[in-house]
């Protein structure tokens, strides 16, 4: 006779447990960590470059970069002044807590204030895999189109910040900012939003102030 066993367990519970362990490591070292997600080409690496350069001498920044192959992005972050670790996922469409755990052993957390994890460019999979970071940041960009919150609700719902990059292209690309923001408002009411251009530098100061404020607040709590 077959027997029914109730399970009721989240399918990614093993990843969630490891993510929790990663966060404990960040907490113990008093390092604030963010998970940066976006579609390919939205400007994750450019935003990290600008952030690292702007906060040089104020915050010690480490970076974990996930890419299917190559280390171009980690190289760029390193050139900008960050300590960078490259994870080649070898085809995986997202980072998971296991990959971050192994990357953490290559970073001297005691010498850092902030770790930025650059996820694989993808608006679907990374949303489901917690990494153990304190905040999640989504980098959207004008040329992607204004319908993305409607097409990728899972991603837009799960983040703490939406950065809208490439606003210097607004005069050239059809993009209804109100339609885009209405989608976000329903999915993620009150989420922090920063409109900026990594290329022109416009709007970057708001993002930088938010990030620095978060790190300070975090260190105050963990003291």
């Amino acid at each position, binding site marked *: 006779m*077959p027997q*029914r*066993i109730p*399970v*009721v367990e989240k399918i*990614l519970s093993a990843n969630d447990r490891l993510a929790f362990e990663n966060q404990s490591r960040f907490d113990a070292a008093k390092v604030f960590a963010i998970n940066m997600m976006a579609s390919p080409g939205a400007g994750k690496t450019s935003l990290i470059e600008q952030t690292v350069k702007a906060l040089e001498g104020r915050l010690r920044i480490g970076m974990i970069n996930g890419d299917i192959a190559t280390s171009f992005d980690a190289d760029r972050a390193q050139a900008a002044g960050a300590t960078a670790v490259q994870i080649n996922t070898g085809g995986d469409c997202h980072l998971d807590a296991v990959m971050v755990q192994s990357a953490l052993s290559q970073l001297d957390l005691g010498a850092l204030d902030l770790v930025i994890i650059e996820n694989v460019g993808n608006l*679907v999979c990374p949303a489901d895999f917690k990494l153990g970071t304190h905040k999640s940041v989504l980098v959207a960009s004008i040329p992607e189109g204004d319908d993305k919150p409607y097409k990728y609700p899972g991603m837009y*719902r799960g983040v703490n910040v939406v950065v809208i990059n490439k606003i210097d292209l607004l005069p050239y690309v059809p993009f209804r900012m109100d339609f885009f923001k209405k989608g976000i408002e*329903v999915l993620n*009411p009150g989420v922090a939003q920063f409109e900026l251009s990594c290329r022109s530098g416009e709007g970057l100061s708001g993002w930088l102030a938010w990030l620095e404020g978060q790190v300070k607040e975090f260190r105050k709590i963990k003291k």
Partner: protein
Amino acid sequence: MHELAVTESLLEIAIRHAQAQNARCITDLYLVLGQWSSIVDDSVQFYWDILSDGTIAKGATLHFRRVPVLLTCQNCGKDYQPASQEFACPNCGGTHVQVKTGDEFHLEAIDVEE
């Protein structure tokens, strides 16, 4: 999507629960997937056939229960399914909503033989 990682995790959870009951084999798995969990059934089934081979779950049938997205308007209380490019409440236009269902992503139960 990441069905390989999902299927690996699914197999691990099912075997762990079956072994805790000293089951000889697993015959059925009951999955609950919300519409917003973006998992493709066929793809999970494909990986399942490969990954479960040689385990006590070999040949088990996967049952997928799909749960549609249902939002509750916090302004007028109406439950509704959002349109593809309009998430606001069709009744009052409210944008302050709560996701009632559609997020699910878990293994509800398994059938085993002792």
